[in-house]
C-alpha cells in the first residue's frame, strides 16, 4: 500500500502592511502626518497632528486625521489649548477609537 504523503506547506509569514525598518520608524514620526496621542490617566488626552475638528459634543470629540477619523468618547468633555494641529481633551474619557492605518475610512 502506497502511502500518499500529503505535502503540507508551511504558510508564509504575512508581511506587515507598511514594512519599515525599525531604524527608520522615526521618519514617519517627524513627518507630521501621523497622529500622536498622549493620554494622561483617563482625564486628559493630548492629540497632535490632527487636521481639524469634525464634531464636538459633551460625550464625543471627533477629529480628522490624515488616515481617517479619530473618536474620543466619554462625558463632560472639554477642549483645552486648541491650536492649529493640537488640542487637549479634558474630561472623563472612556474610549478612544483610532483610525485604520490603511487609509481613509
Amino acid at each position, binding site marked *: 500500500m502506497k502511502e500518499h504523503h500529503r505535502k503540507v506547506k508551511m504558510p508564509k509569514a504575512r508581511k506587515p502592511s507598511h514594512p519599515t525598518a525599525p531604524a527608520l520608524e522615526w521618519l514617519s514620526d517627524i513627518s507630521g502626518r501621523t497622529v500622536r496621542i498622549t493620554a494622561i490617566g483617563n482625564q486628559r488626552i493630548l492629540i497632535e497632528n490632527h487636521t*481639524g*475638528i469634525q464634531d*464636538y*459634543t459633551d460625550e464625543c470629540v471627533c477629529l480628522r486625521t490624515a488616515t481617517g477619523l479619530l473618536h474620543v468618547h466619554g462625558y463632560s*468633555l*472639554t*477642549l483645552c*489649548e486648541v*491650536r492649529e494641529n493640537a488640542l487637549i481633551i479634558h474630561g472623563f474619557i472612556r474610549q478612544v477609537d483610532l483610525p485604520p492605518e490603511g487609509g481613509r475610512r
Partner: protein
Amino acid sequence: MNGDVRLRVEGLMLERLIQRAVSEGARFHTVKRESSRVLIIDADPHSAQILSALCERFSLPCTILSRHGRSAMLRRLKRRATLLAGALTFAAVFSMLFSRIWMIDIVLTGSRDSETRVLEQALSAMDVKPGMSKAKLDPIALEDALSAVSPDFSFVGVQLQGVRLLVEASPAIPAPPLYELSVGRDLVARCDGVIESIHVLSGVACVKPGDTVVRGQTLIRGDERVTKETNRSISALGTVIARTWHEGSASAPATIIEETRTGRFSQSSELRLLKLSWQLVAGNQFASQDVQEELLPIGGLFLPLHIRRVTAYETNVRTIPADVTTLRKQLSHLAFADAGMKLSQSHPADCKISDRWIEYTMAEGVLTARAVYETQTDIAIARDALYQQGG
C-alpha cells in the same frame, strides 16, 4: 495663551468656525459645549478678536461674557484715565508722607522723674522737628549728641518707629555726697525745731534732746581732741532727729453776696461777622445786673455770620452770712494743702509726720484757717549745703 476673554458663540457647525479661527492664528484656552448650539470659549484678546470678526462675517451671535486679567485692566484704565493719575499721586504723597517724621515723643524710663526740657531744647538746636526727612536723621549719631548735651540722663535712646521719633531717656541717679574725714566741717540745723534725739558718729555734739534750735545753729562740731592741749578739725557725721512744724493757711470772708432778679430785664442784639458788628437793637443798663449772652448763627457752618443777643436782668444785691461749717471744711482742705506743699519743698520724702492740727480765727468778717504739720526728721546738714539752699 490665557483666558482673558470669555465668549458665548451660538450657531450650527461651530466646530468649523473654531477650525477656521485656528487656521487664522487664533488659540483657545478652553472650549466648552453649553448646549447643542452654544459654545463657551475662553481665549486671549487677539484670538477673541479673530473669532468675533468671523462671527460677524458669518452672522453668528457672539457675546463677550466677561473680561479678566491684564487686558481687562487696561481697558478699565483707558475708560478711567484719571484713576491711574490718582493712584500715582496717592503713591507719591503716601511715600512722601511716610518718609518724614511727624511725631517726636520723649519718654522717661524708670521710676525717677526729671525735666525733659533739656532734651527738647537739644533737639530744637539740632534742627530735629516734626516734618523733617527721615533720610537726614541718623539715630545713633542723635543718641550720642543727646547723651553729650544732657548729663542729667544716664541713658538716651533714639528709635525711629514709622513716622514717630521716640527718644527714651533715663534720669541719672544723683551721686551721694562724698564724705571725706580729713576735711573739717560742722553739721548745722536745716530748720528750726526741738531736738528729739542725737546720734554722733564723729565730732562733738553741741545740743542735747529737748533743746530748741534755730536754722543754721551748729548741731555737731567737727572737732576731735588729739592731746590735752590740741584739737584737730574733722568731718562731723551723725543724725539729729528734731520736731519741726510747717504751717499753711487759707482765709475767706464769712459772708456771701447774693443776687436776686427783680424781674426787669433789657435785651440788646447786634449782627456780627468775624470782628465786624452792627447794632440791631439797643438795650438798657442796670446798676446791678446779671448778663446772659447768646450767639445765634445765621450762615451756618460756612459763613461766620451770627446775631449776638445780650439779656441784662436787673438784680438786688444783699449780703447773707455763709454756712460756717461748710466754709471751715473748705478752708481746712486749702490750708492743709498749703502746709503740705511747704513741707514737701523743704524736707526730704522720708520725713515722718507725727501730728497735725488746724485752728480757725475770725477777724473783721474774715475766717482764717491755720493748718500745722508736725514732723520728725533729720535736720543735720553740712554748712556748705545749707548755703547752697539759701543760707
